[in-house]
C-alpha cells in the first residue's frame, strides 16, 4: 500500500495522544510521592492555625475541597465512609472559597474534618501541585506524602487508601 507511512505515523500520534490523556496520574504521583509535605501555613476555620506542626506522629489525609465544587459533594459521603472504616484524621483545605458558603455547606452535609485550613488565595494549592479539586494526599507519621488521589475519593479509592494506611501502620 502506498500510504503505509502516513497510516503508521498517524497511528503513532494516536497512541501518544492516548497515553497523553492518561498521563495525569503518573506524573503527579512521581512529583510528590515520598517527599515531605510542601509548605503550609493557613488560618483554620476555628481561628487557629493549620501548619507543619499539625503533621506529626499520625497518619493524615489532606483533602482539597470547596463548596463550589460539585464532585466534592459526591466525595463528602465517602469521607465519612472512610472514617467509619478507619478512624484517621482528615484535614480539609478549603480552596478559593467563600467562608459563608463553606459554613452553610458544612452545616448541610456534615463535617468529617478534624481541621479545616482556609486557602483563600489558592497559594497552598499551588505549592501542593493541585490541578483541580477534589484532590487528596495521604501523609505518613513523618510528614511524608505517601499517596495522592486525583479526583473524587470513591469506593475503589477507599479500598486503595485502606491498604496504604494498613501498610503504613506496620
Amino acid at each position, binding site marked *: *500500500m502506498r500510504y503505509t507511512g502516513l497510516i503508521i505515523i498517524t497511528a503513532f500520534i494516536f497512541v501518544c495522544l492516548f497515553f*497523553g490523556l492518561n498521563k495525569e496520574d503518573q506524573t503527579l504521583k512521581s512529583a510528590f510521592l515520598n517527599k515531605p509535605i510542601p509548605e503550609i501555613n493557613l488560618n483554620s476555620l476555628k481561628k487557629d492555625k493549620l501548619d507543619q506542626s499539625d503533621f506529626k506522629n499520625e497518619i493524615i489525609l489532606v483533602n482539597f475541597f470547596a463548596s463550589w465544587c460539585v464532585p466534592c459533594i459526591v466525595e463528602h459521603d465517602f469521607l465519612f465512609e472512610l472514617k467509619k472504616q478507619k478512624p484517621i484524621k482528615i484535614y480539609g483545605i478549603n480552596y478559593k472559597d467563600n467562608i459563608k458558603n463553606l459554613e452553610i455547606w458544612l452545616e448541610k452535609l456534615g463535617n468529617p474534618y478534624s481541621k479545616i485550613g482556609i486557602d483563600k488565595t489558592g497559594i497552598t494549592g499551588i505549592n501542593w501541585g493541585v490541578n483541580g479539586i477534589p484532590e487528596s494526599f495521604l501523609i505518613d507519621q513523618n510528614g511524608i506524602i505517601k499517596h495522592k488521589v486525583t479526583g473524587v475519593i470513591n469506593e475503589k479509592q477507599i479500598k486503595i487508601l485502606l491498604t496504604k494506611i494498613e501498610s503504613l501502620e506496620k
Partner: protein
Amino acid sequence: MVAIIGNISLIFATLLSFYQFLNIRNINKIRVLNPDRNISLQFFFILTAFFCLMFAYVVSDFSILNVYQNSHTAKPLLYKITGVWGNHEGSMLLWVLVLVFFGFLISRYDKRLDLPYKTLTLSFQSLITFVFLLFILLSSNPFIVISPTPVNGLDLNPLLQDPGLAFHPPNLYIGYVGLSIVFSFTIARFYKGSFDASWAKLIKPWVLLSWSFLTLGISLGSWWAYYELGWGGFWFWDPVENASLMPWLCATALLHSTLVLEKRNTLKKWTILLAFLSFSFSLIGTFLVRSGIITSVHSFASDPTRGVFILMICAFFIFSSFILLAKKAGSIKEEKLISPISKEGTIIFNNLLMVALLLTIFIGTIYPIFLEIFTGNQISVGPPYFNLTSTLIMGPGILIMSFAPMINWKKDDLIGLLSRLKIILFLSLLVTFIFFYINFKGPIIALVGIFLAAWLFFGTLFNFFEKTKYLKKLKNLNKTFLGMTVAHLGVAIFIAGITGSTLWKVEKIKTLKVGEKVLLNNYSLNFDKIKKIRGKNYIGHEAEFNLYKKNKFIKTLKPQKRFYPVQEFPTTEAAIYSRGISDIYIAMSEPIGNSWIFRFHYSPLTPWIWIGSIMAFIGGILSFSHRIFKRI
C-alpha cells in the same frame, strides 16, 4: 419537563441518523423516510434540543446540572443565551447542530446532486452525526437533572461574559464543522462517481463557505482576546488557538488545490488527502480543546472518559478515510506534466508551504505531550518557535502569492512575467521607503513585513486592473475573481497589521495616582478620575483617562477592572482608542495604596489585522455566493 423534551429529541435524532446511515446499503431504493425528510427531521430534533437548553438557561432552570454549573439568576440575558455554548456540553450540542445544519443545507439547496450520490453523502454525514450524538448522550449530556434543585447557579466564567461569546464560537463552528460535509462528499465519491472536475466543482463552494467562516471565527476570537483578556496581544499561539488555525491552513490549501483539479484534472489524490486532513484537523482540534489534554481545566476534575471517547471518534474517521484512500489510490488516474512556471505550479508551491506550516504548528502543539510521555518533563512550546517558523515559511509564499493569479494555466513565459513585476517592485519599495522614513525605529524585519504586504497588495491590484482591462470591463466581472481579489488584498492588509502590531508596538507599564499623566508616542494620557462601578453581577473600578495629542483633547478612555463575586474572578476591560491606523490601549491592573498599575500600548496598524480578516471573509463569501447561485 424541558430536560425530558431535550433528552427525547436527542434520542430521536440519534435513531434517525443511524437509520439514514443504514441507507448506504442500497442507495437506489425508494424509502418511506427519504433522505431529505430524514435530514430535516434530524435538524428539527437537534434544534428542539438546542432551544430546550437555551430555554432552561433563560428561565434559570437550576434543576438541570448544566445550567446550575454555568449560570446564575443575576447574569444578564445575553449571557444566559450565549452561556448555552459557554461550556462543554452545550458547546458539543452546538457542534452537532451545525453538523446537521450542513446536511440540511445540502439536502435542501444543493440541486446539483443526483439522488444516489446525495443519499450516499447524507448517509456519511449522518454517520458523523450519529457518532457525535452518542458521545453527547453517553458522556456529555447537557440535560442531566439534579435533585434537590439548587437555589442559585455557579455562574459562567466571567471571561466568557462578553459579547464575543455570542459570535466567536458559532462562526468558528460553522467553519470547523462545515468541513465535515466536504469529508462526506469525498467519502461518498469513492463509491459513486469519480474524482474529476465535477467533483471539484461540487465541493468548492462548501470549502469556501467553511473557509470563510473559519477566517471570521478565528479573527473574532483574536479580537476578543485583544480587548477582553487585557494582554495587549492578538495571538498567543495557545494550543486552543492553534487547534483552530490548523484546519484553516488545511482548508486554504484545499481551496487552491481544487482549482487545479477543476482546471487541469490533476492533483486528485492530493486534493482527496487534503479534504480528509481538513476535517481530521477539525476533529483533532475538537479533541485538543475538549479533552483538556494540554490546557488544564481548573475548576472541576475533568472526566477522562470524554477524552478517550473523542480520541476514538477521531481515530475512527481518520483511519477509515486514510485506509480507504490507500486502498483505492491505484485506480485514480491523474493527468501528468506540470510546468513550474504556471498557475498550477504556484498553487502546488502554495500547498506545500501551507502543509509545511500546518505540520510545524501541529508538531509545536503536540510536542509537549510527546515529551511528557517519553521523558516526564513538562514544557511549553511558546511564541518564539511559532513566530520564527511561521514567518520563515510564509515569507516565500507571500512573494509568490502576489503574482500567482497573473500567471496562465499550463505554461507561462517567465520574461513577460518579470517585466510586469518591475512596476510592482518599484511601488512596494517606495512604500517600504516611506515607512522607513516615517518610523525608522523598528527592526529591519518590520520593513520586510511592510514590503511583503505592499508587494502582495500592488500585485493583486495590478492583476485586477489587467484582467478588467483597466476597469473597462467591470460589468460582467466574475464574482469568483472579485472574491479572490478582495481576499488577497485582505491578506496584504493583514500582514501589514501584524507587522506593525508586533514589531512597532510601544508598551509602558506605570503606577499612577489620580492627576498624573503618561506620555506615549505623540500622545499624552491624563489620569483624571477613578470611581467605583456596579454592574448586574459584578463590582469594580473604572478609571478615566483624557487623551490628548499635542495639547488637543481627543477622547476620554475608561478602562475597567471588574470583579465577579459569585465566581470570585477578576476581569480586565481594556479601553481602546482606534483611529483606523493605530490603537491606543489601556489595561488596568491592581491598586497599590492609592495608586494603580496600568499598562499602556501604542500599537500601530493593529486595526488592519481585523480589517484584513474581514476582507478575506467577504472575498470568500463573494466567491461562494457566485458558485452556489450559479447552479441552483
